[in-house]
C-alpha cells in the first residue's frame, strides 16, 4: 500500500483516505473508498486519476492522504 502521491502510473484501488474532511470534494465527485482508479499522471505536480468517464486532478496536499493499492 502506498500514498497516491508516491505511485507510478497504472491501475489502483483506493484503500483509505486519511483526512476525510479535506477530501469531501472527492466524494462529491463520486470517487469513493474501494473504487478502482487509473493514475494517468503521477507526481510531481498534481496527480491525474480517472474513474469511469471522470478525470480528476488532485494536488499533492490531498494526494498524500489517499492510500492506494496496486491492482494487477
Amino acid at each position, binding site marked *: 500500500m502506498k500514498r497516491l502521491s508516491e505511485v507510478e502510473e497504472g491501475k489502483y484501488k483506493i484503500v483509505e483516505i486519511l483526512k476525510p474532511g479535506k477530501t469531501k470534494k472527492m466524494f*462529491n465527485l463520486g470517487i*469513493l473508498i474501494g473504487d478502482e482508479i487509473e493514475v494517468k499522471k503521477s507526481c*510531481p505536480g498534481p496527480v491525474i486519476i480517472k474513474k*469511469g*468517464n471522470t478525470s480528476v*486532478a488532485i494536488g*499533492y496536499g490531498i494526494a498524500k492522504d489517499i492510500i492506494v493499492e496496486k491492482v494487477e
Partner: protein
Amino acid sequence: MEEKIIGIAGNPNTGKTTIFNALTGSKQKIGNWPGVTVEKKEGEYIYKDIKFHVVDLPGTYTLLEESEDQKIAIDFLTRNKVDVLVIVADALNLERSLYLLVLLSELHKNIIVDLNMVDLLEKEGIDYDIGHLEKLLKVKFVKTIGNRNIGIDDLKEEIYRNCKEKRDEYLEFNYGAEIEKLIAEIINNLNFSSAYPLRFVALKILEKDEKFIKSISNLIDYEKINQIIFEIEKKCGKSIDRILIEKRYAIIHGIVKECIILKKRGLKFELTEKIDKILTDNLTGPLIFLSIMFLIFCIVFSIGNPIQNLLELTIENFRKFLSYFHLPIWLDSLIKNGIISGVGSVISFLPNIFLYFLFFSILEDTGYIARAAIVSDRLMHKLGLHGKSSIPLILSFGCNVPAILGTRTLEDKKDKILTCLSIPFMSCSARLPIYILFTGIFFIKYQSLIIFSLYLLGLIIGILSMKLFGHIFFKYESSPLIIELPPFRMPYWRNVFIDSWMRTKYFLKKAGTIIFSGSLILWFLSYFPNPSKYGTEFNWIGKIGNLISIPLKTSGFGFWQAGVALIFGIYAKELVVSTFGTLFGTGNLQDVLKGYFTPVSAYSFMIMSLLYMPCIATFWILKKEIGFKWALISFFWSLLIGWISSTLFYQIFIFLKGG
C-alpha cells in the same frame, strides 16, 4: 399571461449554460445574487400560454453549504417558489448528476432531468433505458444535445406539461433500516416547522453540514442528536456522513447498471487522453501554457489596439467637430473635457476587454482552464496561491478588469479574495505609456531593462501583499487543488459570443456609469472657480494637487502637476501621460519634464504610477467580485504601499548619492 419560474441546476461542465442559452436566447441579463458577489444569470421565454422566467443556478456537485455557490443554490431552492427545476446531466457522467438529483428530490421539488450531450453516448457505445430510469427515479427525463439545439423543444414541452400537472410523489431513498431509524429519531427531535422538509433537515444533520446546522442550531437539541449519531458511528466504525454518501452512490450505481444498454464498443475518448498527456506533462505543459497566454496577448494587441486607436481618433474628431458649434464656453468645456473624456476612456477600454473576455470564454469552453491549473499548480502553491489563479494573474498584465472577473473560477472564497487583491499590482498595458514616456527621457540606454524591472516589482509586491493579507485575515493556507478535467471539446461559438458580449455589456453599463460620473466630478474640480484656467493650480483640482504634492515631496516629485496627473490616472492610468501634456502646456513635453524630474525621481514616479491605486474600472469590478470592504482595503493598501515604495526608493538613492 401565466408566469412560471424555472431553475436550471447541475454539475459544472454539463452544458448547463448551453441549455440556458438555448432556452432563453439573447433574452437574458447578468446580475449578482443579493448580498453576495456571485454572478446571477436570468432569462425568459414564452412557450404556448406561459411566460417562463429562467434562473441559472451555480454549478454544484452537492448541496453542502461549503462554498458560496452552493449556498446560493440551496437558498434559492428553499426560499423561492420554483415551479420546475431542470437538472442538466452529463450523459457520460450520469451517476454524479443523479447524486444531485437525489439530494434535490429531498427538497420536494418538481424536477426534470435533462440528459444532455447524448450524442456522446453513441461514441461511447452505450444508451440508457429512459423509461426504466423514469420509473425508478420518479422524474421525467428529456434527451438533448444542447450545442446543436436538439431536443430543446421537447424540453420546453416537458417543462410546460410539468407546470400544468400537480405532483405529490417524490423520490425518497431508503438508506437501510438502521439509518432510516436514525432519521426517524432525529425528525422526532425536530419539533419545529421549517421551510425545508423535515427529512431533508435530518439528512443535513447526519451529513454534518456545519453551516446548515449552525443556521438552525437554536431550533434543535443538537447535543441530544449528536449523542445519537455518536453511538451509531461507534457501532459501525465509520463516520455517518461517509456512510450516507456511499449508500447513495451504491443505490445510484445499481439503478444506472439496471438501466444501461451496452451496444458495441464505440470510439473511446482516446484523443482527449492523448492531448492531456502533452498538455499536463511537466515539461511540455508549461511551455504550451505560456505559448497560449503569449498568443492571446499578441492577438489582443494586434487586433484590440488598432480598434482602440481608431475609437480614440473618432472621439478626438468628434471633439474637433463640436468646435464648429460655438457653444457657450462652459458647455463646450463640459462636453469636451468632461463628458467626452469620460465616455472616451470607457469606450477605449472596450475592444480589449471584449477580446480578453472572449479568450477567457474560449479557454473555459474548451476545458483548457482546468489543464492550466494543473500545470501551474506547483508554482502557484509555492507562492501561496491556488493553481487556478495563474490565468487571472497572467491576464492581469493585459488588463486588470477581465483578470479579476476571471477569478470567478476559484471556488474557495479566500483564494479568490487574495488573488483579487494581488491583481491590481500587476502592471497592465495602460501603465506602459507612462514607462515609455519616462524611460524615453531618462533611461534611453536601459529602456527595456527598466520597464522589465517595474513589471517584476509589481509582481513581487502583489505576491507579498497577498501573503501578508493571507496571514493577517485568513491564517491562510491555499486550498489544495482538486478539480475535474472535462473532456476537450470545440468551443461552442454561440455560447462564447453570448457570454463575452453579455459581460462586456454589463461592464459597459455599470462601470460606464461610475467612470462617467467620476469624470463629471473631475471636470467640475478642474473648471471652477477659474473657468479660463482649466485644470491648473488656480482651480480646485490644482489646489488638491498641491495638497497631494505635500506627501509626494518625500518621493521626489512634490509639485502639483504630479499630484493632478496621479488623480487623473485614477480614470485609467494612461491618462497620467496626457495630463502631463495638458498641464505643462506648450513646448516639448520631454524637455519640460527634464526640468522637473531627475532619473531617480522619474523612477520613483514610475513606481508610484505602477502601485498607487487601482483605476476606477478595476475598483468597481473589485467591489462587484469581492465586495466593497475588500475593494476599499485594496484601494488604501495600494495607496500606502505606492507611497512607501517610491519614498523608500527615492530616499535610499539620494542618501547613497550624498554619501
